[in-house]
């Protein structure tokens, strides 16, 4: 019995060891958005000889191979990935191997895999907690309105950080600084936030129109570069009307 258990344990350990390479999770190398593209650079591992070809293969063995030739100038074998190759949102992977010049055309081993993730377009909508409030608190009126910006996107990786910014007008004129009329929520530098708020606390009556912008941060939560600096404006402004407090009525007896 004891022998059986020991053998089972041993088999499990060996099995775990053998499958270890399969369990390695591919790390993202770069994110891109919008119309931004990527250059795949040869960064070492083997000293290229003039005339060597680099064979770039997209998405594994079934992908299309592209050839660049090293002419002795650093960077000459790099591959500027055409936008059309990585237009679709999601993951795009590349590997490369070196092929020596003809007639030998010797192929070297395959490089590490580079993963590029194209980020989706973002949609930003605004919603005010109160469309109007009185300039001075009265009754249940809190005297403030919270405008919430909500980001929606398809298949947005969880580690992507978003940054929000706000603009406002009062009666059609820009409000600057915004702190005169309220406060915006600080951006979260460590975790993804799909919402952000601006709290309008102005007691000055008028019609306030708010717009917000969401953009991808320069890097994700793990420090991986997000290339493109894409920003997306709110689809519709949010409007809050601050109404004046009615004046004190004068009552006369006649």
């Amino acid at each position, binding site marked *: 019995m004891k022998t059986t258990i020991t053998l089972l344990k041993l088999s499990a350990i060996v099995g775990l060891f053998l499958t270890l390479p399969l369990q390695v999770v591919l790390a993202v*190398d*770069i994110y891109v958005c919008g119309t931004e593209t*990527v*250059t*795949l*650079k*040869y*960064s*070492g*591992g*083997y*000293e290229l*000889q003039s005339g*060597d070809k*680099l064979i770039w293969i997209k998405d594994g063995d079934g992908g299309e191979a592209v050839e660049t030739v090293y002419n002795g100038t650093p960077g000459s074998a790099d591959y500027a990935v055409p936008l059309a190759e990585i237009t679709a949102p999601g993951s795009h992977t*590349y*590997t*490369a*191997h*070196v*092929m*020596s010049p003809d*007639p*030998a*055309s*010797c*192929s*070297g*081993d*395959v*490089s*590490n895999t*580079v993963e*590029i993730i194209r980020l989706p377009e973002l949609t930003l909508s605004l919603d005010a907690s109160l469309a109007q409030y009185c300039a001075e608190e009265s009754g249940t009126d809190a005297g403030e309105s919270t405008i919430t910006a909500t980001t929606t996107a398809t298949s947005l990786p969880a580690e992507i950080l978003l940054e929000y910014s706000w603009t406002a007008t009062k009666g059609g004129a820009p409000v600057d600084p915004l702190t005169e009329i309220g406060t915006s929520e600080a951006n979260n530098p460590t975790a993804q936030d799909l919402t952000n708020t601006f709290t309008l606390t102005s007691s000055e009556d008028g019609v306030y129109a708010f717009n917000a912008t969401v953009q991808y941060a320069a890097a994700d939560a793990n420090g991986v570069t997000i290339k493109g600096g894409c920003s997306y404006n709110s689809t519709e402004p949010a409007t809050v009307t601050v109404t004046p407090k009615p004046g004190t009525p004068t009552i006369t007896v006649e």
Partner: protein
Amino acid sequence: MYLFFSRALYFRTATVLGILLFGAVGKGYGQRVYADEQQPSATFLLASVTNPGWAVDQDYSNNSTLNVTLGLLGSLGTAEQNLQFTGLNKPLPTSPITVKFTAEGNISSVLNLLGLVSFTTTLNNYTVGTPYSGQALLDLLGLFSSGQVVEATFLGPGTSYDGIKMKLSTVVGVGPSAKYFYAFFIVAPTVIDQVICQDDPAILTITNPQPNYTYKWYNVATGGSALQDGSDINYTTDPLTSTGQHLYYVEAIDHDTPGKSYLSARVPITVTVHPKPGTPEIEAQ
């Protein structure tokens, strides 16, 4: 008349073309190339070469005859005949060359008889290489008796040559004669040099294979043990791990004549091994 002339011209042209294209490869003898031209020479009145053309015709059973008359009053004659290869196929400097001959004379010692015969490779009928005569010839033949028809195979001289000359001399009181049947060499195998990648084996293939031939593959130019010996026209090397040039050699052996085998020159094949590129590292920017 015109038609006859045209036909005659046609056959003549075809014959010349055939000789040019295939050399004088004897019918039924694989890639043996027989000498097709000859140059006789004999001391006036003292020596002669009769039927000289029979040493270079397509009938390998007939022969030319070299005669030297008895030496009189100390005057010594010589008869010699050079058999030449004039086709496109020439012997390589290291091609062994085989001749069929006999010699006879009123002389008690075989060694002395063979001392009157010499064979020397030639280029354009000029001597190149070292003559085989006397003991050297006997060593080559092993056994010989006066009048015995034998085949002898001589090593190539190591330099360009296109023929082999038999020379018959005399001494006072002896009038030897010799018969010269033919001379031939075996066309060396041809193998295309290979360019391969590091850690790959090279596959060497003979491009002019012949039935009844075997091939020996070596990694040394002379001597050594064969890496492969047989009728297979391909030889696959071990995977070659070191870059640069590697030399292999192959020689053909003609087994067309039962019980006999004739060797070709051992020819080199160059395998150039290119380095296999290392594993690259790439990054995205």
